[in-house]
């Protein structure tokens, strides 16, 4: 029990931008062989350190086949919210979830932040018994504890949803929803804390994704393409908004960090019309929501022999925007084009009129752009998970998506990498040639920065 608030809690996103520079990054690592053990890597981000840009440790999970993917903290800046304050809880435990195994691991980052220890494991059976859900995806710390999204049920079907985890004893409280309305597919979720609204997005049920993208489902427009809006206090579905079935897979939700605002960004991965990806802005008005396409990134023509079998008939490489991230000042949106191997930076000061302010190529299905640290070596995979430091000056990117989908889009395999980019005060991104991290045979997915990052925390007070 602390006597003062955890120093990593900030009332507003603007104050969080004053946070000290991160010294460490935690990275979820996927074992390529599904019967091997995933791990959590701790990466040295301190430029004064001799080990800068290298993995210090890899903590192996005790069971096999987890498919570590996204993860989060037990507590964060939302602990300062006035209605459910718990500012003396420490940001101390990482909550890692198996997207395939449905296990939950609780790792303690104290006393040694470079060597987190597993202090508790919640088995899949317990997750199912108490919530009915499986295939755990996003973890967010929030007003009622830890919220975790799940893709489906024990049979691999829907509906997916959200469960609550107690942040004191890490027991599963249960299913979050009291009334899910028409919602069936699940993926990501986040909220507008100043408006008591949760937003959730759609990917697919476990049986739709676990053996790879199913072309018939994709061409039939069956993957998710809606956003759902929820009453955060009463746990009830309020309304849905549809991007249109043409826009398949509405994934990452990045609401404004200003709790007085009610807009946010979401990416759709692939358009059935032309394989383009798109970024959309939603706007919640208190009763209903609108969604507007603000960025469209086209597919790039390519020769069939350069493409994996799944794409050969299209003679084009889709951008496959699979992650986006918004800086804490809500000014810059980073967009990962995992297919074409590009990271883009947009100025979204006016969310409805984004302007492209930076672009870096790395890897890509066709391009295979090399990294300055490894000249002459074509890279595979592409920018995928993207995380921004709290001050907005550094961006960390990894290159693996999801094992069975990696195999379809990069059939020759993915050599995992994590890179860092430096950002200009008024835009522009450049690769740090001294930061190129590899992880042996494992592939990196989500990055969480020590003390918090641009997607780990939410705030109850405006800037």
């Amino acid at each position, binding site marked *: *029990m*602390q*006597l*003062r*608030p955890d*120093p990593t*809690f*900030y*009332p*507003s996103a603007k*104050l969080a931008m004053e946070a000290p520079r991160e010294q460490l990054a935690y990275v979820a690592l996927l074992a390529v062989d599904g019967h091997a053990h995933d791990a959590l890597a701790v990466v040295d981000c301190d430029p004064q350190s001799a080990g800068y840009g290298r993995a210090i440790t890899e903590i192996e999970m005790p069971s096999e086949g987890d498919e570590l993917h996204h993860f989060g903290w037990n507590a964060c800046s939302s602990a*300062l*919210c*006035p*209605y*459910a*304050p*718990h*500012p*003396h*809880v420490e940001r101390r435990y990482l909550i890692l979830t198996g997207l395939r195994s449905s296990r939950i691991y609780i790792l303690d980052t104290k006393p040694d932040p470079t060597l987190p220890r597993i202090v508790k494991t919640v088995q899949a059976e317990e997750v199912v018994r108490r919530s009915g859900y499986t295939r755990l995806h996003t973890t967010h710390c*929030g*007003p*009622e*504890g830890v919220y975790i999204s799940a893709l489906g049920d024990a049979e691999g079907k829907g509906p997916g949803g959200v469960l609550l985890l107690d942040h*004191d004893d890490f027991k599963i409280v249960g299913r979050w929803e009291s009334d899910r309305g028409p919602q069936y597919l699940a993926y990501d979720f986040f909220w507008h*804390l*100043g*408006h*008591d609204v949760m937003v959730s997005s759609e990917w697919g049920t476990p049986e739709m994704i676990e053996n790879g993208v199913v072309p018939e489902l994709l061409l039939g427009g069956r993957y998710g393409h809606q956003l759902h809006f929820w009453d*955060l*206090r009463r746990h009830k579905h309020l309304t849905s908004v549809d991007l249109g079935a043409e826009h398949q897979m509405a994934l990452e939700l990045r609401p404004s960090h200003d*709790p*007085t605002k009610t807009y946010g960004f979401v990416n759709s991965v692939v358009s059935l019309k032309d394989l383009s990806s798109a970024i959309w802005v939603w706007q919640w008005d208190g009763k209903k929501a609108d969604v507007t396409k603000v960025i469209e990134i086209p597919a790039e023509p390519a020769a069939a022999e350069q493409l994996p079998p799944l794409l050969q008939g299209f003679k084009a490489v889709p951008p496959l925007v699979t992650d986006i991230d918004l800086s804490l000042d809500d000014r810059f949106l980073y967009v990962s084009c995992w297919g074409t191997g590009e990271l883009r930076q947009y100025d979204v000061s006016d969310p409805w009129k984004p302007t492209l302010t930076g672009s870096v190529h790395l890897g890509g299905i066709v391009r295979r752009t090399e990294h300055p640290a490894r000249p002459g070596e074509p890279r595979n995979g592409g920018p995928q998970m993207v995380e921004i430091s709290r001050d907005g000056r550094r961006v960390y990117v990894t290159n693996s998506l999801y094992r069975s989908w990696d195999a379809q889009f990069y059939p020759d395999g993915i050599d995992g990498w994590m890179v860092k980019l430096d950002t200009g005060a008024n835009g522009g991104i450049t690769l740090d040639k001294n930061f190129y991290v590899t992880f042996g045979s494992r592939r990196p997915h989500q990055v969480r920065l020590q003390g918090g990052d641009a997607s780990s925390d939410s705030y*109850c*007070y*405006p800037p």
Partner: protein
Amino acid sequence: MTHNWVWPALFLLGCYHGINPGMGWLFAVALALQERSVRAIWLALGPITLGHLMSVMAIVGIAVILKAAVPGLVFRAGAAAVLLGMGLYRGIRARHFRWAGLRVGFWGLTLWAFLMATGHGAGLMMLPFVNVLDASPATPGMAGMAMPADARNASWLAAVGVHTAGYLGAMTAVAFIVYRYFGVRILRTAWINFDLMWAVALAVTGVILLLT
């Protein structure tokens, strides 16, 4: 020797709840920041105070009825046990209040303040005062503590009133000072663990009540 300590003590007890960010003023400030209007603080103070008052009244009301129904010693021992138990519970198992709504309206905010004060055990600290008020100096076990004359005659309603005045006064002052001058940045350093201090205070008061 005068024994006017009861009234300042009640007032300061109210002030302690008033300055605790978790007990109301911060909610009022958050609403004002959200609506970009200081008016929101004024509008929030009423329902927050009402909810807190209802919680304290409920505890004091129950205590007054019980006190009339049971022997003095039993009441005192029971009150001490409740204080000690709540203090230990709050100190050891510090579960935070679960609520996820900023946009609550008048009655929502009243309910919130009532639940928050009740969960916090805000009214429990009134038990020693209920024990003292109306008590005769000759009460067994109270020999070491001469009864203040004005406390003896005061009604428990006045006690709740003084407590609430302290609460409202401190809450109002802190809300405006933070809103106008410091901003919520101050939360990072000034938000000491009031809950833990409160738990200790409850337990210690329980022990004192038992021993005196």
